[in-house]
């Protein structure tokens, strides 16, 4: 049994199944894979950029990147982490290109970060300057795409505490960026 066919049989994720079939030569399965990826990435982006035209631009960039970089997905590895890593990268790159970053603070509140705030900045390095709890909160909600409830459950705290951590982390991030600005 090949690794790919083994994956097809054991994986319950539609993305994995479609990709395995697509790599076996089924073009219809590849179209289904792309459609499913579109649905999931759109949901992720909706939490981060809101449902405006910007979302569709980033979504297209993500899909093209998934296709062009499909050789970096090893057979047998789950598609999800690979797909979300590319989507997050393209989202951050999109913000850098625009020279403006709007990050969704939490499920209800939005915080507009001033123009050029994150242009040319390394988000990972910025997060490294935050207390670990705040960095983890931002990483889970803004980079890995979890809701505040999911992130709170993941690290064992309530939704309100999670929102507070994200909020404080975002404020501190903004201060750091302002301090670094010449």
């Amino acid at each position, binding site marked *: 049994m090949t690794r790919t066919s083994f994956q097809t049989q054991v994986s319950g994720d539609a993305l994995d199944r479609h*990709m395995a079939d*697509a*790599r076996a*030569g089924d*073009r219809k*399965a*590849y*179209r289904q*894979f*792309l*459609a499913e990826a*579109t649905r999931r990435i759109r949901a992720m982006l909706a939490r981060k950029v809101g449902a405006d035209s910007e979302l*569709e631009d980033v*979504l*297209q960039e993500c*899909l*093209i*990147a998934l*296709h062009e*970089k*499909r*050789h*970096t*997905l*090893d057979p047998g*590895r789950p598609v*999800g*982490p*690979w*797909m*979300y*890593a*590319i989507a*997050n*990268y393209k989202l951050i*790159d999109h913000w850098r290109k625009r020279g403006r970053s709007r990050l969704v603070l939490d499920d209800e509140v939005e915080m507009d970060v001033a123009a050029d705030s994150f242009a*040319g900045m*390394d988000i*990972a*390095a910025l997060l490294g300057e935050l207390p670990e709890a705040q960095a983890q909160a931002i990483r889970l909600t803004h980079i890995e795409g979890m809701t505040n409830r999911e992130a709170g459950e993941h690290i064992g705290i309530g939704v309100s505490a999670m929102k507070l951590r994200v909020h404080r982390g975002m404020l501190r991030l903004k201060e750091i960026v302002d301090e670094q600005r010449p």
Partner: protein
Amino acid sequence: MTDINSVLDQLASEGASPPSSGKLRFAGPLLAVLALCAVGAALILDGAFASMARDGMGPIAVKWGFSLILLGLSAVALFVLGKPGRPTRAVMIGVALPFVVILTLFGVEIATTGPMVYGETWRQCLMAMSVMSPIAFVGAIYAARSLAPTNLRRAGLVAGLFGGAVAMMAYAPFCPERGVGYMVVFYLLPILAMAAIGWALGPRLLRW
């Protein structure tokens, strides 16, 4: 929605099979700069392995051992960093290990004979490192760009380590110095400097 559907149709029409030359596009630049630096050093420099008659295999074994292991580990790390969604902590720890070993040996040298840092040929050594490291670094950047690194600083740093390791591997046979302290100052520090440059330039050079 229509736009997205037409994008999906277009992408799907190209199929899911990745291009067959993918691995070659990664390994090719790495092997090319490795060969370029090794052959270049052999053509330009004289006296390969001349110090072996005096010092035996020990010094060259340590220099080659360190540089080849670092070269291999950094190539693997670069490959893993180029695969989105893969955990990278283990490979980053891996590239740090050769440095830990050499610093441990340096500690032993300090405790036994005292630090042997000075060497007559330090200028030639620094020149070789400063010429060949950037050449090999460029090859590593090309290799990384054939994949999809998402942590560009980390990938740039590892490309710098690869560049330095290649330069050290190519120059080591021509180096008559034998102190571990010398190796730390005139090999490891230039390699780390190249890595720091890679860390700084990664976001510019590796963006895709």
